[in-house]
């Protein structure tokens, strides 16, 4: 939305520079004959003329009327021409009104005095019409030029101020979106030096529900506004996905998909991602288009993670799941360094680049406490006074300190946890409450992968819906097979819900860490209803949804659940079902 007029446009249309109006002149002379002569010549050209017969009167006229040029006599009783000119100059700072002295004096020193007093030129008496007109035209041209330039300067100033204000607002939005307080992680130090007010570099940190720490360093192509616009939505996406428990690989696929959809073709996001898995003592790194991420132990580089993939947002994923972090054991005494290319591509005056070895040298030779001072200092010296061309972000992760102080596993430790949740819903409750969103949030909190959550949703949803609609409400699902029946079915469902007085559903969800044969956990979902059961064997015989008479026919849900679970067992007479879902699959 446009809140202010565009100052550039405003400047040129107001035409502060090129005055279309008739120029007006102030003629100052105590001799009426001289004044009249000048007035005649000027009026003949259509100019507007005001006269004043003394310095004092000239000042009064000048103050009340907007004149474009002054013709000034020097020798006058009272205030002379020099003084009058000085005073005019004192009031007129912005508009530039040329003062031309009209004088019979030829003494060089007097003429110099005219200029010192603030005059611009002189016209000699006796007045020659040709000379007078030539000088006036010349000064009108100069004045027009001056005014145009001033107007443009003002417009540019206003534009610049507005731009800075907008950038400042944007900077604050970007900063808040990046959630810099989330970067308060023990052992994490970082520095961030944008080339402009806005930066296309982004550094984010968040915990997955299982307690693992994720650090995301990104660098949008370019710098300044264009690069920074993507930052807030990326930050939101990262925080959402991490909080929801997305696996890092899934998260990167998702970000790639979104960026590919929204970014113009020439823009992309170089990315380095770090995951610290406290429970298993692992460090995972993925680098796509960033300078090498470096692991240092006891003053030596023990590992370099070079860019191994295309940056995010470049291509549409053909084979999702390809992006995997490279995991290794967390080494004692190790520190991880990563930076954006503003560091390695810093150029010396002779064109040489700081390079990734420049960063490694600076890191290895640094003093103990002031890494960033040292690295930035080294960079400054290297650039030799040249301006910073790109955003610079650099971080250090002290893994010992992080493990000692930052190991918050919280409630999210799904691995190894054995838990059970049971909901017993009576008739009044099933009418009012849908337990599914709560259960899905619970899985998310416990760190279940996104991939598993959709499948678990289907399992729990189908079994619960069957228990409610057939067990408790006693509806006949064969109704659903044509459009009218479908509507009718849901109309009957609503009616039955309204009438419902009796009935119960017992929904139990449990996690067994040793539940599957491959050492992965399994979720067991058990649903029991107060109904009389059904002919479950008929449905258990159909293995393929295609084998059912109509895709909308009863039992479709059961087939879906069976294809997702290791086992689905109905207990006689069919009002209790147990499904085992493996995380391994």
């Amino acid at each position, binding site marked *: 939305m446009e809140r202010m007029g565009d100052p550039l446009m405003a400047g040129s249309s107001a035409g502060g520079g090129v005055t279309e109006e008739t120029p007006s002149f102030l003629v100052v002379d105590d001799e009426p004959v001289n004044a009249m002569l000048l007035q005649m010549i000027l009026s003949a050209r259509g100019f507007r003329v005001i006269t004043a017969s003394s310095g004092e009167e000239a000042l009064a006229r000048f103050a009340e009327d907007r004149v474009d040029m002054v013709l000034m006599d020097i020798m006058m009783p009272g205030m002379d021409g020099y003084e009058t000119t000085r005073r005019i100059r004192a009031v007129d700072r912005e508009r530039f009104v040329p003062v031309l002295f009209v004088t019979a004096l030829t003494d060089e020193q007097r003429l110099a005095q005219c200029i010192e007093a603030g005059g611009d030129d002189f016209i000699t008496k006796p007045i020659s019409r040709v000379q007078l007109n030539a000088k006036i035209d010349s000064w009108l041209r100069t004045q027009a030029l001056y005014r145009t330039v001033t107007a443009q300067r003002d417009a540019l100033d206003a534009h610049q101020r507005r731009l800075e204000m907008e950038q400042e607002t944007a900077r604050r939005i970007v900063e808040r979106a990046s959630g810099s307080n989330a970067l308060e992680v023990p052992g994490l130090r970082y520095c961030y030096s944008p080339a402009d007010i806005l930066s296309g570099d982004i550094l984010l940190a968040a915990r997955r529900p299982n307690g693992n720490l994720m650090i995301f360093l990104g660098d949008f192509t370019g710098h300044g506004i264009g690069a920074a616009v993507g930052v807030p939505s990326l930050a939101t996406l990262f925080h959402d996905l991490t909080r929801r428990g997305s696996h890092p690989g899934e998260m990167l*696929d998702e970000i790639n998909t979104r960026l590919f959809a929204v970014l113009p073709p020439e823009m992309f996001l170089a990315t380095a991602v770090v995951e610290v898995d406290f429970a298993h003592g692992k460090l995972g790194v993925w680098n796509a288009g960033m300078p090498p991420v470096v692991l240092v132990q006891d003053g030596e580089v023990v590992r370099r993670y070079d860019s191994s993939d295309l940056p995010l947002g470049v291509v*549409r994923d053909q084979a*999702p799941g390809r992006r995997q972090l490279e995991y290794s054991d967390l080494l004692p005494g190790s520190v991880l360094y990563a930076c954006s290319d503003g560091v390695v591509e810093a150029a010396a005056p002779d064109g040489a680049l700081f390079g990734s070895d420049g960063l490694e040298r600076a890191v290895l030779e640094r003093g103990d406490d002031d890494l960033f001072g040292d690295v930035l200092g080294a960079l400054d010296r290297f650039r030799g006074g040249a301006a910073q061309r790109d955003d610079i972000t650099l971080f250090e992760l002290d893994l010992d300190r992080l493990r000692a102080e930052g190991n918050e596993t919280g409630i999210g430790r799904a691995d190894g946890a054995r838990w059970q949740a049971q909901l017993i819903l009576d008739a009044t409750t099933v009418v009012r409450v849908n337990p*599914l*969103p709560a259960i*899905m949030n619970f899985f998310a909190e416990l760190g279940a992968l*996104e*991939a598993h*959550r*959709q*499948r678990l*949703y*289907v399992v729990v*949803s*189908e079994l619960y*819906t069957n228990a409610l609609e057939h067990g408790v409400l006693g509806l006949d699902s064969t109704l*659903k097979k*044509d*459009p009218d029946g*479908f*509507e009718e079915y*849901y109309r009957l*469902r609503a009616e039955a819900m309204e009438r419902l007085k009796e009935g119960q559903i017992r929904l139990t969800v449990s996690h067994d860490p040793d539940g599957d044969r491959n050492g992965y956990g399994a979720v067991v979902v058990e649903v029991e209803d107060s109904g009389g059961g059904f002919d479950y064997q008929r449905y258990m015989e159909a293995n*393929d*949804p*295609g084998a059912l008479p109509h*895709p*909308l026919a009863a039992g*479709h*849900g059961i087939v*879906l659940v069976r*294809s*997702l679970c290791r086992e689905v067992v109905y207990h006689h007479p069919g009002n209790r079902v147990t499904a085992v879902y493996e995380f391994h699959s």
Partner: protein
Amino acid sequence: MPIQSVQQDNGQTLVMKVRGHFDFSLHKEFRQAYKNSEGVSRYVVDLMDTEYMDSSALGMLLLLREFASDHGGEVALRSCSREVRKILEIANFQRLFRIED
């Protein structure tokens, strides 16, 4: 509104976007979205913002398919997440619908 529908290509394409949980609670609204459409030859269900879907959603898609073929149109499912796509594939819906990116 969990379902947003927009007509495109001079009204020949109807795009229905389903947000959040795609389950039985949307059955009326979903039907409403296409029931009175006229001159539509292509129905697109955009599943980009669909968080979860279950078999009643599959049922609703089949009803749409029936409606479309009665009116000489076709149905495409667009922008499914990997997981939603997996559910569609388990149900063999790729045989019934065009699934596009």
